[in-house]
Each structure stands twice: as C-alpha cells, then as structure tokens.
C-alpha cells in the first residue's frame, strides 16, 4: 500500500514542478491587431484573443456577458487606449471579476502608451463636433510604425509577468520590428506614386495611414464623427471632390457601403471596402497580411483600377 502513495506523491510533486514549463500567458485584447502583435511577440508562451472582431466597429462592441466570461482568467488585457474602447470596456473589465487585468493592475496594458498620437484636441472639447475622442485619434493601428511601439511595449509587459521567457519576448519583438520595417519599405514603394493624393474615408480612422504614406485626408462620408451622413452632406462633399479631383472613397466592413458608394457615384470616383483591423476582410489574418491587402486596395483605388461605385 505504501508504494502507490509514494508514487502518487512523486507524481504530484512532478506535476507541480513541471507546471511552470506549460504556463502560457493568457492575453486578451480589445482589437484584433493587438492580439496579432501580442501573439507574434509572445510566440509559443502566449495565447492571444481579441474581444472585438476585425469586421466589427471597435467603437460599438456590445458588452456581452460572454465577453466578461472570455477574460475571466486572462493574465493580461491589452486595451487600445485613447478611449476607443471606452464605450464597452468599463463594463466588460469589472464584469470579468479578474483582479489581474483591472486598470492599475500589472496585467492591464494601455497599448497607446508611447505612440505618437495625432489629432489631439486643442482648446475646448465639445460634442458639437460629434463623438470626438478627447485624448486624440485612437486609430493608430493603421500605422505600421505604431505597431512596432506596441510590440516593444508588450515585450516589456510580458517579460515582467513571465521573467523566465523574457529573452524570447525581446527577440520576438525585435523580429517583429525588423519584419515590419522590411514590409514598410515594400508598402512605401507601392504607395509612392500616390503621394499627396486626396482620399475620402467614412470615419476619421485613416489619418495614421494617410500620414505614413503621404496621402491627403480629403473628407469623411459622415459629416461629423458618429453622425450618419445626410444627402446634403454627401452632395456637398461630392461637389468638392469633383473640384479637387478626389476619386477614392474607402470604408470599413462595419460602415455603410451604400452611403460610400452613393458619394463615389456622385463624385465620379470609386468606393472600396478596406480592412483597417486584422480579420476585417478575407486574407487579413494578421497585421502583416492586413497591411498587404490594405496597401494594395488603397493603391488600386487611387489608381482608379479597383472597386467602383456600381
């Protein structure tokens, strides 16, 4: 009888000793791009999932209880920050009842830290300008360089929480940055012919991409952030687009294709569906393939070869 008990004790001790070797960091994020970066940086030590899907408007994610359940045992939560997820995260995070990932805890990450934020409001902030983001434009994930900042930040966080694998996280972040730099050179070459070209977007969530690749944000389909387009606004914008020779209108899968196409028709241009979040369209499974498809789509739209208002 003594032998089985001894074997059991040895087995339990062995399991306990072996446990850290199998311990992954469970990472949850508010955006698919952040999950993609987290997975690259974390490699085999991390499992990352996003609460918002790539084809879902990150401003308006329903705060379903199942999202709370999904992060009940997460070790890290990566918020996009700048209040982009501020409409639903204040419900989901406390609802998870997970003290490790509440704001202020070691496992909570504001991914916007360190990013050069554009369109920070100066002077009075008023909702007369629509549903603006008072901390600045939060759609920085449309800039490849900003994601390098996020990768480096996540490597630091993962290293703090899982010190034995810190070297792997640092190496993975470096590899991410190098791959992004190499890809960026390719994308910049592809976009070079369109420097200074005007582009119309549905929402003001393209400014980081426009700045990076030298495009001119000409206007938006919605008259003000969060306000649906009116026929009068579309007619006025179409008239100014014609005058300026602006022909490309881009919109995400979660915005109204009808309004974008109507505007493009009136302006004699093309309306093209794009994904600014990984997973938004087929073939955009991670941030690299997302930018591959995004750059290609925008370049074709600006050349007049793709999309169309029909």
């Amino acid at each position: 009888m003594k032998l089985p008990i001894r074997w059991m004790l040895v087995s339990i001790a062995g399991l306990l000793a072996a446990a850290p070797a199998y311990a992954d960091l469970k990472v949850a994020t508010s955006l698919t791009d952040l999950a993609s970066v987290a997975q690259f940086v974390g490699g085999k030590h991390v499992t990352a999932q996003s609460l918002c899907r790539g084809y879902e408007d990150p401003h308006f994610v329903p705060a379903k209880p199942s999202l709370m359940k999904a992060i009940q045992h997460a070790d890290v939560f990566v918020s996009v920050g700048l209040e982009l997820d501020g409409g639903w995260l204040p419900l989901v995070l406390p609802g998870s009842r997970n003290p490790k990932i509440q704001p202020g805890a070691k496992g909570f990450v504001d991914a916007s830290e360190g990013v050069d934020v554009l369109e920070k409001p100066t002077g009075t902030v008023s909702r007369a300008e629509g549903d603006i983001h008072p901390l600045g434009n939060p759609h920085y994930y449309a800039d490849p360089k900003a994601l390098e900042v996020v990768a480096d930040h996540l490597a630091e966080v993962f290293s703090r929480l899982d010190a034995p694998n810190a070297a792997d996280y640092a190496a993975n972040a470096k590899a991410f940055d190098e791959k992004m730099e190499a890809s960026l050179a390719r994308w910049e070459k592809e976009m070079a012919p369109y420097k200074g070209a005007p582009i119309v977007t549905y929402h003001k969530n393209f400014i980081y991409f426009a700045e990076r690749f030298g495009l001119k944000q000409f206007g938006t389909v919605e008259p003000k952030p969060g306000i649906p387009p009116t026929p009068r606004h579309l007619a006025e914008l179409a008239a100014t687009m014609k005058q300026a020779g602006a022909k490309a209108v881009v919109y995400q899968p979660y915005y109204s294709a009808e309004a974008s196409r109507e505007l493009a028709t009136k302006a004699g241009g093309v309306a093209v569906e794009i994904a600014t979040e990984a997973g938004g369209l087929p073939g955009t499974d991670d941030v690299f393939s997302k930018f591959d498809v995004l750059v290609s789509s925008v370049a074709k739209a600006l050349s007049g070869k793709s999309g169309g208002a029909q």
Partner: protein
Amino acid sequence: MSLRTLACLVAALISAPTLAAAQSRSMFSNLANPSIGMNALFSGQAAHNLNQPYGLHFDEAEISLISVVDPYWTLTSNIVFVGDGSVDPEEVWVRNTSIPSIQLKLGKIRGTFGKHGMLHTHAFPFIQAPVIMANTIGNEGFKDAGLEAAWLTPLPWFAELTGGIYEGIATDADHPLDFGSTRHDNVPFLDHFKNQFDLNDATTLEIGQSYLQGRGSDGFVHSALGADVTFRNVPPKDSNRRGWILQGEYIQKGSTAGGSYHKEEHGGYASFQYRLSQVWWAGIRGEQAQDSFTDFLVDGAGDPVRGKVTRGNANIEWMPSEFSFLRFEYSHAKADNGAGINPTDDRFMVQMSYTIGYHPAHAY
C-alpha cells in the same frame, strides 16, 4: 482724486498679476476628480381620461459621479433631482473586484432583480414602465441599502450567481414590498441567477431567475420572485445600425403567514424592439398585471382600486447621436376590478433625453 487713492490704485494694479498667478497655482488639484455626467429627461402626455393637464414636463435630472476611491474600491453615485423638487440619492455604492470571480457592491444599490428593474429611467425601452413593476418591486426596481456579492461561476458559459442582503424598510411609494419588521432576524435577502449564451455570432440568449424576501411590519414574510428571458441580436458588421431585442419577464409578489403562501400582485410583459437604422428604433410591448393598481383604475371617489390591467404600447425613437433621443409612444390599456369598474385608457406620450459629460454604457 487724492494722492492716497491714486497710490492705492497703482498698488492694486501692480499686485494684480501676482494675485492671478497665485490663483492659477491653486493648492487644490482637480486631476483626480470623478468622471461627471448628467442626463435630463423630459416628457409629455395626452390622455383624455386622466384628470391631468396636457403638456411637457420635467421628469428628472440624474447626475452621476464615478471614480476610483483607492486600489480596492470604485465609487458610483447617481443622484436624481426629481421634477417635483425632491432629491433622490438613487444609487451610491462602492464596488470591489479584488477577489477573483467575485464582485462586491456595498451601499445604496439597485438590487439585482430581473431585467427591467435594473434599468435607469432614461434607459427604459418604453416611456412607461410595465405596470407590474410598481406593484411588486418598485417602478424603477428594488433600490435599497445593502451588500451584494456576484459570483461568476466556473461553468463554461456566463453563469452569475448573486446574493444580497439589505436594510429592512417599510412600504412606501418606491417600495411596494413591506420589509419593515423591526425584528432582529429581519434581514431581507435576494438571490439572482443569470445565464447568457452566444447562440451565434450575432444572437444571444439570456435567462434569469430572481427571488427577494424579507419580513414586513405586519410580521408576515413578504417576497417577490421573477423570471426573465431575452433574445438579443446585434449583427457584428452592423452593430451600430441593426439589431433586435425580444424580451419577456414575469414577476410575482406574495406573502407567507402561518405556513401558507398567498399570491398577491403578479404579471409580466413581452416586448420586441427593432433597430431600423443608426438613428431609428421601433418597439412594441404587451403586458398584463393581476390584482394590481394603475393610475386610471379608480373608484367613483377617485381612489385607486385593484384589478386586472392589460396594456399594449408601441413607440418609435429617433436617436440622432448616442447622447440624445426623442421618442413618441402610444398606449392602449383596459382594466377590470371584477366589480363593475372597467375603464379603458389611451394616451400619447413624448419623451426627450439629453446626456452630457461622462456616461458609462448601459448593461447589455
């Protein structure tokens, strides 16, 4: 002007910048101030059978203050300035999420009972609350000082078990349940079990059960039980433009004396809300409440009497932004007290809601 006056003026002008600088370098920081928001709610009603003037009136202004207290607590308060001039500290509670899988709420809280009872007035899907609410747990839900613990169970779906204990308070306009016994063993308590399932990418099913019990000033045990079911659809690609909510809820109030249970007011509602576009919602609701009071069911002297109330509502809402809406609603109701009083009621209503500052999203 005397020389002394001139000297005083010069001295004042010289010292003015110093004073201004001192004021701008206040010793009081506002960086840790709470998030502040306010909702103002107005409504109008036209009902030919009610002895009330037609017109617009101010319902309430709700001021909310939310802030982290320290690493352990977050404080939420909703102070309501009611149209009649009174002030109601509707909710003032602290929340703790330091214990894994447990959320603690302490203070003046909205007890976790059912679905409609968890809504703030400006979040009601219809201008009128269901008749059964005011007859069982309160028109705006069960609001009382107490302590609640909500456990997110380890079941593979969202399954939350909430238990709460509250202050024993007697019946008043906001509290139809009599928990006013002064016996030391009178500790009103609640349990709530909520389950939510993702049926697919867009549609969820939520099933809830609630029970609330305490001892009344008459010495009897008074209780309310509830059950609710909600199907909700939010298409991921159209989360801000399309969707629908199908909901039903049943609540029963009762009392127990000498070991026998006596069913009192009971009833429920079924509603369907449909989002037509980013800015338009429409809804219909049918309801019935038994042994209940309502404002148009009165006797010859104008005193309220009990009866069966059946009502249907239909509304349409224009929501030009996330922060305001304008709603039109029509309701038709009939009541019968079983003793020859059986009035009908038709009313047209309008409601306007405006929100400024920080306002957290409402629960799913």
